[in-house]
């Protein structure tokens, strides 16, 4: 399947699965079992995971393209966690990829591994309550290793982010039977996590743009459509700009990650995404007036996700600092080459 066809297929399926009501229901109950079955049947969560490891095959760029569509529709499922993060970690360590949903404990989790048991509390674990397994990246012997646990063995406290997506607190006091070494380190996992949020944000920014363009074309005040007013047109330009900027950034970050680099690009993209959330949600809501503040109108399904996702896997400030250090370590003469060359210019 070409990327275009894959995106078109995902677009059609996610549009069907993510009606306004379906997303609201999933937020209330914390899970969308029928939607999960539908995407699992098509193998969508495991795109970019090698077939040899039990995945669907395909490239990282394809997986990110599908994830962007999920972001556009607010798909209430652990798509990023199951494939791009969880299965990626498992496969890197030679572990089996399970058939059901998987989640990953974010980095800086503070869990304690003493060589036999894993103890402590991890917060903001996406969809832990519904995942078949929870995957953890652990420091082991000066390197990193992957361990995964059946959710049934853990105590899960259900919490959510501002968009009603499960971000659970997970209490660990479990024996660790298998720790499999991996070449992935904490920084790579963090970059990968950030990349998934960039793709989701890129999609949701498209949603804000399209919704705002449509609403301002239909809604009339003072005898003409809102989009005929210059003041409103400024909002349209801002939502279009931010969608374009983060869309491009997401594409380039994915492309470079696929080529084995991508650190600078992902950091830039996540930084831009954070600012884009601010600009786009402000303009989008302003253009919608009171209508955009109601639960029955769907703008918030995108904007609440944007406000949540920008904070996950490092907000703008985190990645700004990360980039700032890279630049500062290399000095003024290296600044433009870094802007133009990205990770390849790091040497």
């Amino acid at each position, binding site marked *: 399947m070409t990327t275009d066809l894959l995106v078109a297929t995902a677009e059609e399926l996610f549009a069907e699965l993510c009606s306004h009501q379906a997303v609201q229901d999933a937020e209330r109950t914390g899970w969308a079992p029928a939607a999960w079955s539908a995407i699992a049947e098509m193998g969508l969560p495991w795109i970019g995971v090698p077939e040899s490891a039990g995945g669907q095959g395909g490239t990282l760029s394809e997986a990110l393209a599908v994830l962007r569509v999920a972001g556009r529709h607010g798909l209430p499922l652990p798509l990023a966690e199951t494939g791009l993060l969880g299965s990626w970690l498992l496969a890197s360590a030679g572990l089996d990829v399970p058939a059901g949903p998987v989640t990953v404990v974010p980095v800086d989790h503070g869990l304690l591994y003493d060589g036999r048991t894993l103890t402590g509390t991890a917060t903001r674990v996406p969809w832990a309550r519904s995942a078949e397994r929870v995957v953890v990246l652990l420091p082991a012997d000066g390197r990193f290793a992957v361990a995964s646990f059946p959710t049934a063995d853990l105590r899960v406290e259900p919490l959510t982010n501002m968009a009603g997506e499960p971000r659970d607190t997970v209490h660990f006091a479990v024996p660790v039977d298998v720790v499999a070494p991996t070449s992935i380190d904490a920084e790579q996992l963090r970059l990968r996590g950030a990349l998934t949020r960039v793709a989701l944000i890129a999609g949701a920014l498209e949603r804000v743009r399209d919704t705002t363009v449509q609403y301002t074309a239909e809604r009339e005040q003072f005898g003409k459509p809102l989009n005929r007013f210059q003041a409103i047109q400024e909002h349209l330009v801002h939502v*279009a700009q931010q969608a374009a900027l983060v869309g491009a950034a997401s594409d380039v970050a994915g492309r470079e990650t696929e080529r084995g680099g991508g650190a600078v690009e992902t950091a830039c993209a996540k930084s831009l995404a954070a600012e884009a959330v601010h600009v786009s949600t402000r303009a989008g809501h302003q253009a919608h007036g009171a209508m955009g503040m109601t639960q029955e109108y769907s703008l918030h399904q995108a904007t609440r996700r944007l406000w949540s996702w920008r904070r996950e896997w490092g907000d703008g400030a985190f990645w700004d600092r*990360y980039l700032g250090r890279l630049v*500062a370590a290399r000095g003024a003469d290296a600044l433009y080459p870094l802007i133009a060359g990205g990770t390849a210019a790091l040497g």
Partner: protein
Amino acid sequence: MKAGPRFVTTDLRPLELALQSEVRAFLAEELPRGSYRPGLGFMAEADKAFSRKLGARGWLGMALPKAYGGGERSAVERFIVTEELLAWGAPVGHHWVADRQSGSTIAAFGSEAQKQRFLPGICSGELGFSIGMSEPGAGSDLAGLRTTARKVEGGWRLDGTKVWTTGAHRTDWMITLCRSSEESDRRQGMTQFLVDMSSSGLKVNPIPFLDGTADFNEVVLDDVFVPDELVLGEVGRGWSQNTAELAFERGGPDRYLSTYVVVEQWLRETADLDDEALRLLGRLTACWWGLRQLSLASARTIDEGRSPVVEAALVKELGTRFEQDVLEALQHLVDVEPSPQSTSLFERLLCEAILTAPSNTIRGGTVEVLRSVVAKALL
């Protein structure tokens, strides 16, 4: 619903990366750091000798036909040369307008004789051009222009006043938009002329910028004769030709790099960066990187035969506001009262940038005009 602006990202291919290295090596050789005063984007100094060196390298008129001295090279290659020159703060003032838009306009609409006469000089860095569009009564609403062209034996007589004409005191030629006939539609009846700046009856009066610099001018045309062979394109088609010309000048790296050298110099002069400084540096890096992706995508689109007019307007609107935001962010961070006479080059550049930055979102189409261009694509 319309699709709106569309950007297909791209990256540099091996030969393009080789060109980038070549330009960097040239700049390091010709303009070693510390040997020159970096300029702020295309407001940089006019240095004809430097422009000639670029011409000799084949880096001016890159997109123009080889038959006229051009390079028949791609928009992406031109993008590469331009971004390196601007990031270096190189003195691009002499050739800037000719290379960016006058050459393309002549190539697109000029007669064979005009192409032979002007394009080689543009490609060699010899000829400098000005833009004669704005008038006292016609700014963003260019259709209000009143400079007239009256048909006479063997040519035309031009009368009127052009303003905000950058470099008119030093350039050789000006592409001038005039009203050649009165039509009910204000956008009809306009014609473009190639006007010799040494013409009798043409007077250049400086309009000093608010910082005292004098690159800005008023050009008074008092019964200036222009021979028929210097009518550019078709009589009466000036408006559409001019609109195409404006599209040439939007969306390039000059629309987000004008204040870049200020930050680079700040970094050079600052020994220890605290957390706030690191975050700012990171944020600015991300913004330049992102704008570059959009601008580069537009260049590639041109090479694929499309005309990204809306995309260019979107980039310019975003990029020129960012150029100003850069200065504001720096001033929040750096506790100095910048002096134009400071021994710190950073401070001097900061002063210059603060005093000129308001023009970034005005020149070549105000952000308000650009917004209407982008918004129309979304309606």
